[in-house]
C-alpha cells in the first residue's frame, strides 16, 4: 500500500513547470485555462493537456502596464507569470466565459504572449433545450479550433475524458467526505496542495496518485476534530499558507466553496445520452460560482453547504475587486446570519496578506463565534 503522504502532490506542483515544458517539447500540446467552467474534458479529449493557470502570489511588474489596478490580483499575477515566460510551455489559452476580467485578459494575453490558440467558449447560464443547442454549437466551434492546432475530439475520446475527470472528482470528493467525518488527518492547506497538483498534472497521471492517496487515507483514519469549524468561501486560493494561518488561528476548515476546491468537483459527472450531453448536463448542475448564478439563488445553497458541514462561521477569502463575489456578499451574509451562521470577509490583495493582521481578524472572529 502507498504511504499516506502529500509529498508527491507538493512535488507535482513544485516541478509542474519543468514537467509540462518537457511534455510540450515532446509534442504534447498544453493549453491553459483560468476558470473551472472551461470544458476541460473537451480539451483533453482533443489530445491536449488542460492546465489551470495560477497566479502564485507573483509580484506585479510587467503586467502593471497592460492591466488596470482594479481587477483581481489572481489574473494580474497570472499575466505577470506569462510575461515572465513562466507559461512558455502553453500552446495557448482556452477560456470558458465566466467573469468579464478573465474574458478581457485572454485578449491581452494573446496580444502579448505567443501561442497557437486563444479562444473563449461562450457558456449558457440557464438550462433549456435552446441553451443546450447553443452550448452544443459552442462546443462544436471549440472542436474546430482545437482541430486547427492538430486536435481531434471523437465521441469515444470525449467519453474517456469525461470518465477520467469524473473519477478524479469522485476521489477528490472522497477526501472531502473523509475530512468532514473527521477521518482524514490532513490540514486544509495540505488538502489544497493535493487539489493544486490536479490542476497542473495531466489527469491520466494524477488519477493514480489520487487513488493511491485516498486508499491510504481510508486505511488510516485519524480524528482531526480540533478547532472551530468554519467554511471557506471565495474563488482561487493558490497559496496554501493562507489556509495554514486560518487553521493556526484556531479554526478547522470543514468545507469550502472555492473553485480550487469543492466547487470544481461537484457534481463529478453529468447525465446524458451522448458524451456532449453528459458534459453539458454537469455544466448546468455545477455548484455555482457567483459569476454564474444570481445571489438570491446562490445564497440558500451556501447556507445549506455551511449547515451541512456543521460550520459555525464562514470566512470569505475574496480576490480584491472580484465583482461577482463582492456583489453577492450583502445577500449571502444576510442569508447566513438569518440561519445563525456568522461571516468574516478578508480581501486577498496583490501584495498578499499581512499574516499578523489575518491572524488578528480570524482569531477575533473565532472568539466572537466561541460564545
Amino acid at each position, binding site marked *: 500500500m502507498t504511504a499516506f503522504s502529500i509529498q508527491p502532490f507538493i512535488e507535482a506542483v513544485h516541478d509542474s513547470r519543468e514537467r509540462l515544458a518537457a511534455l510540450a517539447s515532446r509534442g504534447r500540446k498544453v493549453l491553459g485555462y483560468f476558470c473551472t467552467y472551461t470544458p476541460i474534458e473537451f480539451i483533453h479529449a482533443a489530445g491536449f493537456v488542460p492546465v489551470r493557470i495560477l497566479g502564485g502570489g507573483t509580484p506585479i511588474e510587467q503586467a502593471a502596464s497592460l492591466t488596470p489596478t482594479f481587477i483581481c490580483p489572481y489574473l494580474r499575477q497570472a499575466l505577470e507569470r506569462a510575461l515572465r515566460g513562466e507559461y512558455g510551455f502553453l500552446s495557448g489559452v482556452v477560456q470558458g466565459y465566466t467573469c468579464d476580467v478573465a474574458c478581457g485578459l485572454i485578449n491581452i494575453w494573446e496580444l502579448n504572449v505567443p501561442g497557437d490558440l486563444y479562444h473563449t467558449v461562450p457558456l449558457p447560464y440557464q438550462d433549456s433545450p435552446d441553451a443546450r443547442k447553443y452550448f452544443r454549437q459552442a462546443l462544436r466551434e471549440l472542436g474546430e479550433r482545437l482541430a486547427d492546432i492538430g486536435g481531434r475530439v471523437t465521441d469515444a475520446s470525449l467519453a474517456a475524458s469525461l470518465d477520467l475527470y469524473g473519477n478524479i472528482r469522485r476521489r477528490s470528493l472522497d477526501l472531502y467526505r473523509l475530512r468532514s467525518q473527521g477521518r482524514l488527518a490532513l490540514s486544509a492547506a495540505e488538502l489544497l496542495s493535493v487539489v493544486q497538483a490536479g490542476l497542473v498534472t495531466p489527469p491520466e497521471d494524477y488519477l493514480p496518485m489520487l487513488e493511491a492517496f485516498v486508499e491510504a487515507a481510508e486505511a488510516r483514519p485519524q480524528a482531526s476534530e480540533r478547532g472551530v469549524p468554519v467554511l471557506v468561501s471565495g474563488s482561487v486560493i493558490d497559496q496554501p499558507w493562507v489556509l495554514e494561518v486560518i487553521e493556526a488561528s484556531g479554526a478547522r476548515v470543514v468545507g469550502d466553496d472555492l473553485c480550487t476546491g469543492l466547487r470544481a468537483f461537484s457534481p463529478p459527472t453529468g447525465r446524458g445520452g451522448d458524451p456532449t450531453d453528459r458534459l453539458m448536463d454537469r455544466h448546468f448542475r455545477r455548484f455555482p460560482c457567483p459569476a454564474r448564478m444570481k445571489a438570491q439563488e446562490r445564497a440558500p445553497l451556501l447556507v445549506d453547504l455551511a449547515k451541512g458541514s456543521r460550520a459555525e462561521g464562514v470566512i470569505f477569502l475574496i480576490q480584491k475587486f472580484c465583482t461577482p463575489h463582492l456583489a453577492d456578499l450583502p445577500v449571502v451574509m444576510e442569508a447566513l446570519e438569518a440561519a445563525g451562521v456568522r461571516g468574516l470577509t478578508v480581501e486577498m490583495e496583490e501584495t498578499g496578506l*499581512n499574516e499578523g*493582521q489575518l491572524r*488578528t481578524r480570524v482569531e*477575533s472572529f473565532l*472568539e466572537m463565534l466561541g460564545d
Partner: protein
Amino acid sequence: MAIFAGVDIGSTTGKALLLDDKDTILASTIMEVTTRPEKTARICVDAVLEQAGIKEDEISFMVGTGYGRVKIPFASDNISEITCHASGAKWLHPTVKTVIDIGGQDCKVIGVRDDGKVREFVMNDKCAAGTGRFLESQARVLDVKIGEFSELSKQADAPAMISAQCSVFAESEVITQLNEGNSIPNIVAGIHVAIASRLISLLKRVGIEEDLTVSGGCAKNEGLIKILQEKVGVNIVMLREDPQIVGALGAAVLARQKWEKKKAA
C-alpha cells in the same frame, strides 16, 4: 488574593497591567516596543511586578494580546486585541456598545454585546492613515512633537483640507499646506479631520450604538477626539483609566475569567 495579568504588545508600545480579584488595578505600565516582542513583554511584566511589589509566581493567570501576543512565552494564554479591547472597555464602562480603538498600526471599530463579547468588528488594516503611525509621520513633517498635536489642533480657526486617504500622499499635502503658509494649528486640525473621516466610514460599517468610547494611544489626543465627536454627532464617553491600557486591562479581565473557568472545571 488572586492576581491576573494582561500584557498587550502592540506595534508601537507594550503595555502590562495587574488586576486583583477585588477588581483593583494594582499596577500598569506603557513603554515603547523593542525589536523583540518577548523582550518588550518581559520588561513590561517586570515593571508591573515591581510596581505592585509582587513576584511573578503570584500571578494566577496571564493573557497576552496585541500583535506580539503569540511571542509571549510566559503568558498562560493569548487572546486577540479586538476581544480584549471590548472586554476592557466594558469593564471600565458597563454601558458601552461601541469602541473605537485607534492604535499605532491600525484602527478598529468594535461593536460590544451586553455580555462584553464582540458583536461585530472592522479593521482598517491596509494603510497607516487613521493610525498613530500616520500622526507620527505628519508630526515629523511639521517638526512638532506628537504630544503637542492636541493643543495645536484646538487653536485652529480653519482646519486645512487634507484629502488624501494615503499617509504618504497626505504628507505631500501637508508640505504643500506649509509652503502655502497655512498655520500649523490649521494643518494639525486638518490631519485630525482626515483621521476622523476615516473612522466614520468604519463606524458606519459596524453601526454606531451608544455608549460610544475610544481606546488606544491616540484616544489621549483631545483635539482629535473633539473633531471626531463633532463628526460622529453622538457623545463620546471618555474612559476613567488611560485609554492606552484598555487592551491590557481587557486581557487581565479575560485572564480572570479563564482562571475561574479552569478552577471550576
